[in-house]
């Protein structure tokens, strides 16, 4: 084996090694991107699920199929704070998709961050949706922010917790959903700190039609 052959072998090994490293790097990057996109998708799907549920429930504040059951719809909101709300509504069932005419109580609130110490994300919380006097069971949807503001008829913001819930005419709901784990791909462009993938949704002005219909 002459020196030329040895040089050829060395050169081809270098070229092959380089190509292999490129391929492996490409593989790694693609996998990271794929997973990042997948996790981003999960965050967005969680956000859509939460926002659709909230919109559905909150639009039915003060609704009851039997309107005579709610004498004063303005009093349907029983408690209103930035992270908790209790109101009267009428649940849909399979047999009665437009409600059964029996008044129900619905409570929404978020738990504390200490309930989810098992996740790396220190901000995520459980969100609770409690029907009547059922035992509260938190659902993990990655919610890190669940914030509500309330406005009266003249669009003045009401201080919370709202003393006179009957003054509430409009609501603003803000939700942020975060991933429980940081992905290195996502970072703050200013600080270069890695951040949790998040999605943000705000219902700027939600009006429950039944709240003020009478």
């Amino acid at each position, binding site marked *: 084996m002459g020196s030329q052959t040895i040089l050829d072998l060395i050169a081809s090994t270098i070229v*092959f090694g380089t*190509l292999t490293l490129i*391929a492996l790097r*490409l*593989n790694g990057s*693609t*996998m990271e*991107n*794929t997973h990042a*996109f*997948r996790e*981003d*998708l999960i965050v*967005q*799907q969680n956000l*859509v699920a939460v*926002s*659709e549920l909230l919109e559905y429930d909150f*639009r*039915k504040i003060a*609704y*009851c*199929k039997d*309107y*005579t059951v709610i*004498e*004063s719809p*303005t*009093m349907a909101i029983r408690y209103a704070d930035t992270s908790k709300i209790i109101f009267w509504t009428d649940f849909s069932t399979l047999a009665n998709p*437009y*409600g059964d005419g029996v008044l129900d109580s619905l409570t929404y609130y978020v738990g504390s961050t200490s309930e989810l110490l098992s996740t790396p994300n220190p901000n995520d919380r459980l969100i609770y949706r409690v029907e009547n006097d059922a035992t509260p069971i938190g659902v993990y949807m990655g919610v890190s922010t669940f914030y509500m503001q309330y406005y*009266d*008829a*003249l669009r003045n913001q009401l201080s919370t917790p709202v003393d*006179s819930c*009957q*003054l509430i005419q409009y609501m603003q709901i803000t939700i942020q959903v975060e991933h429980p784990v940081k992905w290195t791909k996502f970072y703050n462009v200013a600080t270069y700190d890695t951040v949790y993938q998040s999605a943000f949704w705000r219902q700027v002005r939600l009006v429950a*039609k*039944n709240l003020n*219909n*009478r």
Partner: protein
Amino acid sequence: MGRSAIYMVMGMTFMFLFFGKTMSDNGTEAFSNAIDYYESTQMFNIAEAGANLACNQIFLNSSWRTGFTNVPMNNGTFTVILDTVTYPNKVYMTSIGVYQQDTHFVKILLSPSSMAKFAMYSGNVSSAAKLRNGDTIDGPIHANSKLSTQGNPVFIGKATMGQLQKTAGSPTFLGGYQENVNITFPDYAPSAAAIVDLANNPGGTHDYQNGSELFLKFSVDGSGVCQVQYKLSSGDSYGAAVPLSTFAPTGNIALVDGKLHIEGTIKGQVTITSALSATSADDSHGAVYIDDNVRYYTDPLTNPSSTDMLAVVAASNIQIQKLPMRMDGAFFTNSSAKLKSDLVNDSPMKQLKIVGSLISKSIGSTDFGNGASQGANFYMKYDTRLEGGSPTNFPNPTNNNSFEVLSWFE
């Protein structure tokens, strides 16, 4: 090119295809997620638009029941169906929004509006006509000019007013309140005319009278039949009792250009007017005097399924002749509701309990009491049956017979 290069190209291609598909799937799902939310929002908005347009049509023409069929809207369609059978005397509206084969339903129950939607309405209120300590308004109240309070009256239902004027104390608004709300006093004449027409139909013992004075006394006999007695002068004795269905077959009683007195216990549904033709309203023309308690036979406060209903529409004042007093019914006056003049000085105050609705064009400074501790203590208890079924021909707050939303499912 050697075999290795071909393997390399094949390997890379395979890898790209694999990851390409996975990434493409992610992209598709993300897009699908966004589209799902967009579509659900779209079909909701389309159904809402249909409902709003139909409500507007009913507002423009209260007898409109045509509905809409497959009206294109924002790349979808909506259909609106109006049902007047499921809920008698009401309109049950269903708006169906269709977008990309998905549907959303909005269901609205509408009821003809009436001034009886208020427990208490006053058009022009004197600053001195205050609601005071011990006064309770349990139901919606509107004071178009101002709501004047002194001390700590309690408002259990929603309160609206042109302006809130407080003198000492702090009123309690459990149902919230809203200023700068203008609901003008309606024209009562079409309602009164309709009642007069019905009462003036052939038949009936004495359900229509022109001029002079008419005293009506209602009672319920041992067999549960509502009876009516009447007389034409205070010095007379009441005549023989006649079943209400015979006395006023249409359920409407009218006195035109006269002075009407009412008392007793009512079973069934009666609408009474003291109307005017050519004369001007005063204490002898178009006025109604509540001589004694006017009660329902079946109390709606203890038995909400009560079907007893009284409506009184007066062209002039409604005057309360004694205290304490309980009045069941929907009372409308095109002038003032007030106490008999010597009652405004009653001390201690006595209760005036109205179960139903009191609608007055104005309230004068001493109509219900002379000062803070004389006259009547109000206890207004709204009869919630009036929300969904106002008395026949009770004045409507608008000229076009508008509707009220009773429930809105979306």
